[in-house]
């Protein structure tokens, strides 16, 4: 899952980026409204973590401008202003969730997963394809009830494909979800992950659509 973090405190931003990466997210970090606007237009994020007090304006205004343009990406407001009135203002401004500082990293990760899940119209945290189960919150994949260890990126590729069975995901789309801006992408990285997933979970799970990409076949 790829998330964008908009926060002007350098240390917290770094913590969020590192912490969310440990939680299995691919996180991009920006410090200003301007950069956030550019980033959100360039990349299709699964969720955005947005601070309100930013050096070049209010995060709420950015959120409102997104919503007025019908930009539907899930936004979690992360802010030190945590009164009931602030929370109401934030949620009515179009936020999907609201979390006050300081916060628990695990809770933040769970809330990000929840808003992104809701945005995709799912209620369960478990994705199923035949006897394969992908547990988002437990970050675990099971085949026939037995846990199969996956790397962070293998998990992310499988998650992307299983979220919408039948839909073809191009290599670039998968790379976007796996790698942040500063990360070096190997030329055949996605192919390597697909290969590993097939050998761990079975060939029939992922189909290659020549010239287009990959998909998990619709059942």
């Amino acid at each position: 899952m790829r998330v964008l973090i908009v926060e002007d405190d350098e240390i917290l931003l770094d913590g969020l980026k590192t912490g969310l990466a440990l939680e299995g997210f691919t996180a991009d970090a920006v410090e200003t409204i301007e950069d956030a606007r550019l980033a959100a237009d360039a990349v299709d994020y699964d969720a955005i973590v947005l601070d309100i007090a930013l050096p070049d304006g209010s995060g709420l205004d950015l959120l409102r401008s997104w919503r007025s343009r019908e930009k539907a990406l899930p936004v979690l407001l992360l802010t030190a202003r945590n009164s009931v009135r602030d929370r109401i203002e934030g949620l009515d401004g179009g936020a999907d969730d609201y979390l006050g500082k300081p916060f628990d990293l695990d809770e933040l990760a769970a809330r990000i997963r929840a808003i992104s899940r809701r945005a995709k119209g799912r209620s369960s945290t478990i994705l199923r394809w035949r006897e394969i189960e992908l547990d988002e919150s437990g970050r675990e994949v099971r085949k026939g009830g037995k846990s199969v260890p996956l790397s962070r990126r293998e998990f992310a590729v499988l998650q992307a494909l299983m979220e919408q069975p039948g839909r073809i995901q191009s290599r670039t789309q998968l790379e976007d979800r796996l790698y942040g801006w500063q990360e070096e992408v190997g030329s055949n990285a996605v192919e390597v992950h697909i290969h590993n997933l097939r050998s761990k979970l079975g060939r029939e799970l992922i189909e290659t659509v020549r010239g287009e990409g990959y998909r998990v076949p619709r059942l």
Partner: protein
Amino acid sequence: MTSLRARIFVLVAAVTLLVWSSAAAWTYFSTRAEIQRVLDRRLVEAARMVASLSGDFEPGAGGALPSADRRQFGSYSRQLSCQIWSLDGRLIGKSSQAPTEPLALSGTGFSERLISGETWRVYSLADPERGIRVLVGDNLSVRQRLVGDLMAGLLVPFVAAIAGLALLIWAAVNRGLLPLREVARRLRRRDPSDLRPLGLDHVSRELRPLIGAIEGLFSRLARHRENERHFIASAAHELQTPLAGLRTHAQIALMTSDEQIRERSLQRMKTSVDRTSRLVHQLLELAREEAAVEASPSRWVSVADVARGLAEEFAPQLDRQGVKLKVSEAAGAAEVLIDEASLTLVLRNLIDNAIHHSPSGSRIEIDYLNGDEEAVIAVLDRGPGINAHEIDRVKDRFVRGSTARGQGSGLGLSIVELVISRVGGRLELSNRSQGGLAASLILPATFARLTEHHAIARGKHP
């Protein structure tokens, strides 16, 4: 006298008593004069009557005249005494109570005479035709008694009226002060947090200035409290973000098995703690400066000395950033009438800001300018300056300019402004034409001077 009620009562009572006493005195004197006049007229009439009747008496008989006054005058009976003398000095007749001594010595008209301890007022009438003198006299003590009794009769209602009046005045004063008690009652019952106006619609004109002053104080207090509430909220708010950073990194350090990530998070935590303690330190400084009592400093403090101390204090940072701190010739010779701790605090904040924004290899300069009315101590840097639209706002608490590098608490300039305003000065920020920021402490000229040594040096090298 602390009681307004007692004060008004005493004043009103005293004035009333004075008026009453004057009225009583006037009544006394006018009544007495009237009585004298009436009694004198009676003497005249009695004398004439006796003179007209005296033809019926045999001269020299010495018989008693009929005492007609007895019943008529009650306790003032035998008031009139009458003597009839022949013109050659023989007593022809007298009333029974009259002394044998002549009541008047000679002449006619009114006279007074002391006879055996009693003063008589006498009217003498000479009748040369009959060859007699008629003397009719009053005993003055009887006259006095008459006036006295009359006055005594007036005194009883007078005293009773005074007592009654005192009670009524007291009640009236109490009633008149009711609006004041109403104000007191409202103030007494008021919740300390309730600083709205008193809501007295029909307040007496005399109370209006007082109510106005109280409500003015209320609104100033409310504003002050709102500021404080805002400040506390902002302070708490400002602490949340570094705390969130700390907590996140702590969680990362606990969670990760990667030594490198853990080390980095711990390092970040350390930085965050340093920054948070700087914020807390500045909050305390601000609180202390706000509570500080204004004291007029009595000693001239050398800007150069303070700058030298700060240069030592900041030496590691200056070295790290490759920035130099220079004190201009004028600033080196300047002295200001501010206590040393305040000047240090102010310059420390400004220099700290300048260092944070200075590009490597640049120079921070402390300069001094002396005008007729104002003197300026300026801290000049070569940093990015402040965006024009933000320049008025950055002095506000917790406001950081967008060119700030995420280090500051947003309190430094607030502290500087607070301290400098206490000596009647102010802080002005402006972007320098060649780039960089000029932070100017502007002081009344009487608070700054150049030392003589420098003045001489200046004379030699203009």
